[in-house]
C-alpha cells in the first residue's frame, strides 16, 4: 500500500527540489551580477534587501502567502513560496564569489573583444561554479528538510508525510521507512557537498581583488533592472511583511493575549540560550582539533557533525523519540532531549564559526607566549580564549537564532505544555486563526533580523553550515 505512495512522494519532492534549485540559481546569480558588477543604483541597499528574506522563516512566509491567497496550494504555489524564501542561499555565496573574482580577468577578456554576455558566460560563470553549486546544494538540503512551509501549503513531500504518519500512527514503521528514503536522498547531497567543500580552497586562492571593479553601465536597461530587483524584493520581503502587518491589525482587534505571548517568548529565549551554550561548548574541541590536529580522526569528527546539517529536523526528532522511548523512558518529552536535538541540528553552524576563529589564531601566538614563560593553562586564559571569543560569540548567536525559529523538532520533542514562538504560531495558524498567529511571527522576524544584518555584512561566512 505504501509503494505507490512512496513513488508519488518521491516525484513531488524531486520536482520541487529541481524547480526550486533552478529558480534560485537564476534569481541568485542574476541579482548578484546586478549588485556586484552593474551600475544599478543603490547597490548596498539592494544587497541588504536581497538578504532580508532570511529574516522571515520559510513557514512564516508560507503562512503570509496562503493566508492572503488560499489558492496557492499547488506545485506552482509551493515553488513560488520556497523560491522566495531560499534564493538568498544562492545569492549570498555567489555575490561573495563575484567580489572575490579578479576584475583584471574580466578586463582582459573585454580587451580580447568579448561582449558583456560572453564575459559572463566564459569568464565569470566558470569561476562562480563552486559558489553556485554550493548554494544550490544548500537550497536542496533545506528543501528536503522543510516541513512547516510545505505543510501549510498542503504540498505533500517526504517530510510532511513522515509527520502525518507519525501523528496518525505514533512511530509506525511507515514513518521510519519514509525517513529512511529521505535520509538516503540527504546523504547523496551531503556527499556532493563534501566533495565541493574539499575543492573550495582553490576557488578562494585568488581572492582579494587588487583593483576596484568598474561597474558595467546599464544605460537604458537601468529601469528594467530596477524593476526586476524591486519585484523580487517586493515578493520576498514586502508581501510577507505586509501580510503580517495586516493580520496583526486584524488580530489586535480580537485582543492579543499579552501574558501568554510573554511566557512563550521567555520560554523560547531560555531554550535558545541553553542550546547556544551547550552547542558552542561542544563545538569548541571539534573546531580546535579540526585546525590544530589535522588528521584522519579530527577530520572524521568534524565531517560527522555535518550529518546533522543534512539530516532533516524531522528525522533527528523521530530518532530521538524512538531512542528516548526505548532506552530512557524517563527522558522522553523532556528539555534535555529537545536540547540534544538542537545540538545535533545546529552543531555545524557553531563549528564553522569556531573553526574560522581558530584558523585566525595561528599556533605562532602560542609559541611566542611559551617562549615568554607562559604555562599551558596561562596561555589558554591569556591568549587562546580572548582570541577565540568573537568566533565563539558569533557561533553561539547563530545557534541561538536558529533555535528561536526551529519548528519541526520542537513540535515533536517539546515537553507537554512547553510552547515556543514557533509551535505557538503553528498551533494558531493550523487552526486558521491567522490573527492570533501573527504576533508570534512578528517576534520571530524581529529576533532574526540582527542575524540577517550580520550575514549581509559578512557574506563570506557559510550560511547554515
Amino acid at each position: 500500500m505504501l509503494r505507490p505512495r512512496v513513488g508519488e512522494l518521491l516525484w513531488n519532492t524531486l520536482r520541487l527540489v529541481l524547480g526550486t534549485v533552478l529558480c534560485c540559481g537564476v534569481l541568485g546569480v542574476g541579482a548578484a551580477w546586478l549588485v556586484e558588477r552593474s551600475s544599478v543604483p543603490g547597490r548596498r541597499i539592494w544587497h541588504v534587501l536581497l538578504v532580508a528574506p532570511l529574516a522571515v522563516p520559510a513557514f512564516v512566509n508560507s503562512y503570509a502567502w496562503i493566508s492572503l491567497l488560499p489558492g496557492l496550494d499547488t506545485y506552482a504555489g509551493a515553488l513560488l513560496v520556497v523560491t522566495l524564501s531560499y534564493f538568498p542561499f544562492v545569492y549570498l555565496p555567489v555575490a561573495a564569489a563575484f567580489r572575490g573574482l579578479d576584475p583584471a580577468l574580466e578586463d582582459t577578456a573585454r580587451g580580447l573583444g568579448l561582449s558583456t554576455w560572453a564575459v559572463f558566460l566564459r569568464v565569470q560563470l566558470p569561476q562562480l561554479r563552486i559558489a553556485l553549486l554550493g548554494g544550490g546544494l544548500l537550497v536542496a538540503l533545506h528543501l528536503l528538510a522543510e516541513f512547516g512551509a510545505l505543510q501549510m501549503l498542503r504540498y505533500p513531500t517526504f517530510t510532511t508525510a513522515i509527520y502525518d504518519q507519525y501523528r496518525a500512527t505514533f512511530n509506525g514503521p511507515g514513518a521510519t521507512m519514509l525517513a529512511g528514503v529521505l535520509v538516503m536522498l540527504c546523504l547523496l547531497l551531503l556527499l556532493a557537498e563534501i566533495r565541493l567543500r574539499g575543492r573550495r580552497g582553490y576557488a578562494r586562492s585568488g581572492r582579494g581583488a587588487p583593483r576596484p571593479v568598474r561597474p558595467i553601465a546599464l544605460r537604458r536597461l537601468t529601469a528594467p533592472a530596477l524593476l526586476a530587483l524591486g519585484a523580487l524584493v517586493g515578493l520576498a520581503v514586502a508581501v510577507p511583511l505586509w501580510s503580517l502587518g495586516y493580520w496583526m491589525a486584524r488580530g489586535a482587534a480580537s485582543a492579543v493575549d499579552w501574558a501568554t505571548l510573554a511566557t512563550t517568548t521567555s520560554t523560547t529565549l531560555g531554550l535558545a540560550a541553553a542550546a547556544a551554550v551547550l552547542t558552542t561548548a561542544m563545538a569548541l574541541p571539534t573546531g580546535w582539533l579540526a585546525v590544530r590536529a589535522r588528521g584522519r580522526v579530527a577530520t572524521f569528527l568534524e565531517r560527522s557533525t555535518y550529518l546533522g546539517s543534512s539530516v532533516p529536523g524531522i528525522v533527528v526528532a523521530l530518532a530521538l523519540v524512538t531512542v528516548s522511548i526505548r532506552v530512557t523512558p524517563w527522558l522522553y518529552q523532556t528539555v534535555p532531549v529537545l536540547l540534544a536535538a538542537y545540538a545535533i541540528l545546529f552543531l555545524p553552524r557553531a563549528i564553522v564559526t569556531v573553526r574560522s576563529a581558530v584558523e585566525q589564531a595561528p599556533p605562532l601566538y602560542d609559541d611566542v607566549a611559551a617562549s615568554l614563560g607562559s604555562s599551558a593553562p596561562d596561555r589558554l586564559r591569556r591568549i587562546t580564549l580572548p582570541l577565540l571569543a568573537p568566533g565563539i560569540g558569533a557561533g553561539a548567536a547563530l545557534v541561538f537564532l536558529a533555535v528561536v525559529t526551529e519548528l519541526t523538532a520542537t513540535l515533536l520533542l517539546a515537553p507537554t505544555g512547553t510552547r515556543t514562538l514557533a509551535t505557538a504560531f503553528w498551533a494558531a495558524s493550523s487552526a486558521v486563526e491567522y490573527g492570533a498567529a501573527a504576533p508570534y511571527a512578528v517576534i520571530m522576524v524581529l529576533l532574526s533580523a540582527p542575524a540577517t544584518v550580520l550575514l549581509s555584512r559578512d557574506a563570506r561566512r557559510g550560511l547554515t553550515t
Partner: protein
Amino acid sequence: MSSLTVTGLTKAYTAGVPVLDGVDLHVPSGSFTALLGPSGCGKTTLLRLIAGFDDPDAGTVVVGDRLVAGGGRSVSARRRGVGFVPQEGGLFPHLTVAGNISFGLPRRQRREGSRVRELLGLVGLDAALADRSPHQLSGGQQQRVALARALAPAPSLVLLDEPFSSLDATLREETRLAVSAALDAIGATAVLVTHDQAEALSMADQVAVLRQGRLVQLTDPRTLYRSPQDLDVATFVGEAVVLDADVRSGTAHCALGAVPVDGRHPDGRARVLLRPEQLRLSDPAAAPEAVVARIEGVDFFGHDARVRLILANAGTVSARLVGADLPATGEQVAVTVRGSAQAFPPATTGELPHPVLSA
C-alpha cells in the same frame, strides 16, 4: 646573557629526509650571529629547536651551561629563557603595545608602566605608543615592539626569525639599525635567521652559512666575503667573477691577466674568484698591455653601477664602478685587477657555475 652551543643537531620531519643534518654552532655570549641560507635550508627549523618549539632527533642544545635539549632531556620552551621574535612580529592582536611588552613579566611588574617605557625607549619608540593596538602600528614599529616583548623578561638569548623580510627597503634599513642598537645596548646574545646576505654581513659578528641542513661555514662577515669555503658560498654571499685559471707559483693566469693568489695553492689548473669591485676600467690607449674588453651593457643603480664586460674568449664578467664617469655600451675598455684572487679547485665537468648577477 649566555652563550649558545649546538652540537650535532639533527631533525627530520619525514623519515630519511633530514631538514638538519648534524649542525654544530657556537654563539659566544653577547655576540650577534646570523644564520644565512636559501629558503628551505633548515635555518628556521634550527631556530625552532633552539627555542624549544620542537625537539631534535639527535644532538644537544646548551644555553649558558645548561643543557636544554638532547641527551634524553627536553626543557620546555617556557623554561628556557629564550626570547623569540617571529616573522611579521606576531604581536598578540587582542593586547595593546604595553600588554604585549609586559606579557612575559611577573604579574606585579605588569601593572607598573616603568618597565614598558624603558623597553620602548630601548627599541627607539615613543612611550606614547604604549596604548595603541598592534594594527595601528607600522610594520617596522611592530617588529620593534616584538623585540621589546622578547627582551622584557631578560632572556639569556634572543632569536630573530627573518624579522625584516616583510618590510620595504627604507623601513628595513631603519628597523635594522634600531634593532642592532637595542641589542648592542644590553649586550644581548642574538641569533638572526635571514636569506638576505647584505643583512647578514652588515649586522652580524659572525655568519653561519647553512646549505641543505648542514653548516657550511661559520666565520666573521669579512672573512666570509673574502675567503668563502667554496664557490657556492662565494656566489651566495655576493656577486662574483669566476674564471678558469692556471696557477703558477702564487700567481693565477686567467682571462684578466696575471693575478696574485691569496694563501697557498698548488700549481696547476684552478678556478679563481674575484669580486666585481676589484675590476678597474681604463682607456685602452693609456694601458696598452692590459686586457681589452667590450662593454655589453651598464646597469645604473645610483650609488654605483654594474658594467657587464665581454672578454675576448672567457664569456661575460661584471665590474662595479662608483662615480658618474661610466663607459657606454659597445665601447672598448682596458680591464685591470686590484688586489688578489681566491683560488678553488678546477671544475670537474669543466663548467663554470652560472654567473650570479643579482646584487
